[in-house]
């Protein structure tokens, strides 16, 4: 160790003593600041779990101490995706059903819509065509 470094180490030992003898009020305020900072870490580690439940998978997250919570979040995510899939399916089916019912209940047979002559007649017979 160089002479310069030895001197620096000695200065640092004096400084260490200064931190040990820190005013009690300051030490308390530092402790409170630390607690506040740690609470923010708690928020930061909880928020991915909340997001995970909402639609983003929480896999290998930082909550290894709570595997049950992680499993529940994943389960909720899968349930949400499944419900969304079936809901969309039912909604589409219901819409198709309404169209089919309207076509079948109409006096005009559905095949008429495929007939080119009928289309031509509609255009010719419509007020715009006259």
């Amino acid at each position, binding site marked *: 160790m160089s*002479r*310069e*470094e*030895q*001197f*620096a*180490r*000695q*200065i*640092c*030992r*004096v*400084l260490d*003593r*200064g*931190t040990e*003898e*820190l005013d009690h009020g*300051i*030490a308390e*305020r*530092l*402790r409170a*600041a*630390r607690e*506040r*900072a*740690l609470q*923010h*870490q*708690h*928020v*930061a*580690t909880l928020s991915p779990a909340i997001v995970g439940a909402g639609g983003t998978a929480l896999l290998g997250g*930082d909550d290894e*101490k709570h595997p049950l919570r992680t499993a529940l979040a994943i389960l909720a995510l899968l349930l949400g995706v499944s419900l969304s899939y079936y809901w969309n399916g039912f909604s589409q089916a219901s819409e198709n059903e309404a169209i089919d019912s309207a076509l079948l209940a109409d006096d005009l047979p559905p095949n008429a819509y495929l007939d080119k002559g009928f289309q031509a007649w509609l255009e010719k017979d419509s007020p715009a065509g006259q």
Partner: protein
Amino acid sequence: MASRAELSNFLAEVERRAYKQALFAVRDEDTALDIVQDSMMRLSEKYADKPVEELPLLFQRILQNAIRDFYRRSRTRMERFTSLSALEGDADDPLDPLEVIEIDEDVNPFATPHTALLQAETLSLVEAALQTLPPRQREAFLLRYWEGLDIAETAAAMGCTEGSVKTHCSRATHTLAAALESKGIRP
């Protein structure tokens, strides 16, 4: 990633030194506390996912940036104490205090037979001398020797080259030695 307990232990270990570092730089207790609190908060919020061994350097980067931000915001230059360069002796043949300071390897020079009052005075003089250093020299000295970062880590925390760190540290050490020598402190 660092667990809550690991982060708590780390912050508990560094908070007092961090406060002192900030205090040397800004010379105001409340501002120094604010800087340390903001730095702790930022570390907790942004870097909670980092491994615990990365925390010291990350925290020092945050802390030093916060101190620099304070300088930028306040736009006030730190008043320098008496020009310590004047204490170095004749301009043509500057005296190197480290050459004359005698260090006893086996005894803690600050602990022997000095009284508690003398120790307090020594501490006060050392802290005052540190405050007189140019900010970059003080930053390099404290990071390198007090925080125990190596030269590369100090350079990373300061955002400068390793050569600059060496220069800053050397100048800081010699200036401190001169300042203490002038006060009759022979470490």
